[in-house]
């Protein structure tokens, strides 16, 4: 079921994350140029399934400087089909290096590429990506 109160959910996630370890399945990837490591926790805590709404808690670690990331964006596309999600991912910034995303839905089986775009203070976008195959 889609969460009715994303902000409240985000706060719950954040508080859980601060105290007992964040819920959800943890994964990470490094941007192609090695600047950032992106770690995300997926809830509900089970592998992503086709047409199943989920949320992400995302933490971005700058591996080279102490700069605060300027912006973060998430998207998911199906390269073979040349389309993306039917939902819009609107990251909600929780703190300087963490975001939550709600109402995500990979609505079709097949190969999806999730992209995590971190923009630094110079406006340079750094991308990490993760391929997910849904059956």
């Amino acid at each position, binding site marked *: 079921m889609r969460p009715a109160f994303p902000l409240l959910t985000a706060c719950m996630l954040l508080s859980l994350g601060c105290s007992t370890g964040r819920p959800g399945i943890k994964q990470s990837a490094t*941007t*192609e*140029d090695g*600047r950032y490591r992106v770690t995300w926790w997926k809830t509900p805590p089970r592998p992503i399934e086709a047409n199943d709404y989920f949320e992400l808690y995302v933490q971005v670690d700058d591996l*080279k400087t102490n700069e605060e990331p300027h912006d973060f*964006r998430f*998207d998911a596309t199906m*390269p*073979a089909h*040349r389309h993306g999600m039917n939902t819009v991912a609107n990251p909600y910034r929780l703190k300087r290096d963490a975001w939550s995303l709600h109402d995500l839905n990979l609505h079709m089986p097949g190969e999806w*590429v999730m*992209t995590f*775009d971190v923009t*630094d203070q*110079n*406006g*340079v*976008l*750094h*991308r990490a*990506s993760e391929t997910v195959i849904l059956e």
Partner: protein
Amino acid sequence: MLAPAILLTLLAQAEASELGKWVSTHENLGGVRAVAAMPNADDAAVLNTETGVVQLGFAEKSPTLDLSYSLHQPRGLAIAPNGRIYVADTGRHRVMYFNSDGEMLGGFGGPGDGTFRMRNPHAIDVSDTIAVVTDTGHNRIQVFEPDGKHIRNLDGKTLGLRGPEGVAIDDAGHIWVADTHNHRVLCLDDHGQVLRAIGTWGTFPGQFMEPSGIDAGGGRVVVTDRLNHRVQVFDTDTGAPIESWGMHAVFPRQGEGKVHYPADAALLSGGDVVIAEPFEERVQRFGPGGKDIEPPTLAPRDVQSHFGPVAATDGRFFCTWEPELRAIHIFDLDRKTPVRLATFGEPGEAPGQLGNLTALEIDADRNRLWAVDAGNHRIHEWTLSPPPPEKPRFDPSIATLSRSAPLASAGPGDLGTTEDDLIYLDRTSARAWKLNDTGHHTPIDLPLSRDPAAAALAGIDAAGQRRAAILDASDKVIRLHGQWPGTASTEPTISLTDLIDPVDFAVAGDKSLIVVDRGGHQVHRFAINGTPLNTWGERGSDHGQFWRPAAVVVDHHDRVIVLDHGNHRAQMFQPDGTWLMTFGTGRAWTKRPTPPATETETD
């Protein structure tokens, strides 16, 4: 292969058209770029951007005015109601105006970023009371009195303009703008308030793919929809589409109403429409009194995709792009014929999506690909995961976007790499920028002249100087910087004044320079000391012939690859001009004649 979207467009436009009936074609107008309605005649004036000559009409004994004495790479033309001739003098970032005998009366603008300064103005239109200019490099519209007194700028940031190329004033005094890289048309009042916005990227009626030229009058606004190869007409009061035509040529050079990359439009007093097609070096006239355009035949098997005007090579890779698809092609050159490894990209402004590319660069050792995206004003970097050389195969996912940085320059041009540097040129301000690993831009001390159109970087010489060769398209010269073996003097130059429109060059293994002359449809090879060595090619579509070649690279087997833009293909030669191969996205020919006795599938 024609893209399915274009085929759909063809079918949609095969219906009968009233305005879009073909009246006449005027060919062999090399350098034609702009057309303008003549106020006191049912005819159009034509501007030749290469020669600076304006032809006043197509009737017998129509006068021609040589305005080259005060113009440099002009792109826009307007005839005022009082007969004055206004020219957007793009190369000098200003507008010049003349009387009907060609005597210069004055000018306004000039290079710079100030209130009335201009950067690459592309078009102008003039009414009784105002002159409006697309200040393309500043992404804004400027409004002047007809004698050049500045009135105001229509703020491009508020309007969100991106590379506007066309402008027109309608009968009500409203300003129509072809907002080219936003793929839309805007109607503004003379203070810049948006009255109407038409279009998004697409092929359906009312959508655009790079609207370029525009003219208005009599309740109609006419737009040349460049990458859809068509003309669209709208109602100025409602913005509703009235009509569109532009049966795409399935063979290059097809005329009699077939339209190919139209750049500008003029709406004549009698209601006819004249369009300029620089790609085909011709002007065509349409109107109710003309003939129906023959419906398109199916594309022949040897028709290629729309290879774009930029290319790069390194190691086994060759890459180019296809503007209509906003997609980059990567080929493997180390097989008998090139094998297409990937096609990726799509139109848009989001990360990884493409606007309008002005340069590509590829590094086979580091598996990196870069593109200068003037449309999105960014420089993109992809990481490549190519298949092993012994098993090349098509894989659309071999390129992964790794970074995308905003450009520091306003007029992005060519791109070059050395072992340590990624350097790009700003053609407008004649500066070179270095992009480091953290995305920081640093201006570098590379002496550039006023229009650095292309560059070849060749590392650092023994004296610690950066060795570079820079083509200045304005001065028609290649300047060498740093110490180049085989040159007698420091900073030698190679004169290209005998060429019509040199646009790109490459350095061969023996350090000879290979130059493409787009206007002359030829390739020229010079020794590093400037001595001409050999020339090949002529205008045509056969193997070894060219139609407006746009780029050249030399691969690691010392083969010269010429992007034969007008024929939608690439051709490969030995440095002495011996033809080796013609190839595109689908197939390659290694033997003459056409169709060849043997042809080889590349996919």
